[in-house]
């Protein structure tokens, strides 16, 4: 075996963080709220990030913190918005299609466990003078620049697109004023609008009376 160049503290920290990552990852599926699930997942990712720092990946580990913090916040809010569960405090079941999920989980665990036990991992100790931040920068802006720059441009375009789509000042006027579908013939009634009782439409010049 290689001579250990880290102390007992690192081993203890690894075990505690790994336990935290697994337990909070499990809680994601056992809790009953979107917001709690998202932030349990965040804690799990943060534990993994600290493990990455222990593995001398100092940039990637710290980057995990801020990336996941923003990501999980946005995810939590979007889930609450789309699931019509106001504020996410209402209890709800976080699992569905349980039999398929259990099968996939067991299969995934067996495959990953077998890989961890049976694969022979490369034994390449990190050279003493390695600067992980600099080497990562050289990698991203060197040979792999085209991939990273294209991915970055696609993401930026998506972000601008989302902002434009969700902005309340759109091509058809301010969203706050309400939107009206166009009529089927020029100047006609808005298409697909259900007929309303008289009480509901005070200001309209056009009334239907059904007796």
């Amino acid at each position: 075996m290689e001579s250990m160049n880290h102390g007992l503290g690192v081993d203890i920290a690894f075990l505690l963080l790994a336990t935290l990552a697994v337990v909070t990852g499990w809680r994601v599926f056992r809790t009953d709220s979107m917001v709690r699930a998202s932030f349990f997942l965040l804690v799990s990712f943060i534990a993994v990030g600290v493990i990455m720092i222990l593995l001398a990946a100092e940039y990637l580990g710290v980057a995990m913190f801020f990336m996941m913090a923003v990501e999980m916040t946005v995810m939590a809010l979007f889930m609450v918005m789309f699931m019509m569960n106001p504020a996410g405090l209402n209890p709800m079941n976080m699992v569905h299609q349980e039999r398929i999920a259990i099968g996939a989980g067991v299969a995934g665990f067996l495959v990953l466990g077998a890989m961890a036990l049976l694969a022979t991992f490369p034994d390449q100790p990190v050279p003493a003078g390695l600067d992980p931040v600099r080497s990562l920068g050289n990698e991203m802006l060197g040979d792999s620049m085209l991939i990273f720059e294209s991915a970055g441009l696609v993401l930026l375009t998506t972000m601008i697109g989302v902002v434009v789509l969700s902005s309340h000042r759109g091509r058809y006027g301010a969203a706050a004023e309400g939107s009206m579908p166009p009529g089927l013939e020029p100047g006609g009634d808005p298409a697909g609008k259900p007929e309303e009782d008289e009480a509901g439409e005070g200001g309209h010049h056009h009334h239907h009376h059904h007796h």
Partner: protein
Amino acid sequence: MFSELFLPVLMVIFMLVVGGYAVAVLDRLVASALGTPQAGGIWLAPMARGAWLLTQHANATEAPDWRAWRLAPALYLALAAGGLAVVPWSASLVATDLVTSVVLWGSVEALATVVIFLHGWSANSLLALIGGYRYVALGLSYILISMFVLIGVALPAESLQFTQVVASQEGLWNVIRQPLGLPLFLIVGLGMTFWGPLNLADSTDLAGGTASEISGPPRLVWDMARATMLVAFSGVAATAFLGGWLGPWLPGPLWMSLKMLAVLSVLLLLGRLLPRLAPERCVTLMWVVLLPLSFIDLVWAGIGALL
């Protein structure tokens, strides 16, 4: 073992206590200088208030998320401690001299968004919830501005380490080299501690926002966390723009303390002088004016680093 593990922890705890007290005293000094009379002695009033809060009942709402509600103030305090841990007091006196300390501070800002949202959400109360959502909407723009400004100071240092950022200001401080940087960063600081004009998460129009339902010890921790986050922020600002420990005659840590006090005083003065912004206007200001200004700051820094 002692000097590696316990000394940095003691240093950060010392800074949390002294810094939190300093903010409370300075804010009262600023207020009385501006003509707002302060009840009690300026030096003793913060401690009296702390002791009073400690003996009060902790309020309970109907069916809150207890764990998140009680943890959120402590987590915000922990984030402030994390920020203070990477602030260097001299070339060697720094609790954690992480090579990616600038990125770690960015993570503190991002995780603060999570914690503030959680604080508002978990109370199961309307005004607290609105405060939490408000902070998320605004916090994203604070994080972006802060990120571009901090990349600007990392460029001349060619490093993501705060000690290197200070070393790169040996000839010229960043406050002069990148004139847009510090003003933009100060706005970020008021934003992420929701202080003064940018206090939109805990504002009076929401009857206290995310903190509207807390009292007693949790309120004490929350108030302390906000004050110490302001201290951590002024430490980062002094490091990134005011040359950190650099300065003639006096020893490094003393220079650093003076610069931090200066940044704190400016922030507290701004907090007392400026009126609170409307949240919608604040979002427009951030995205339409300040974010483009931070781009200009970054391009300025990039050209400066190339020349």
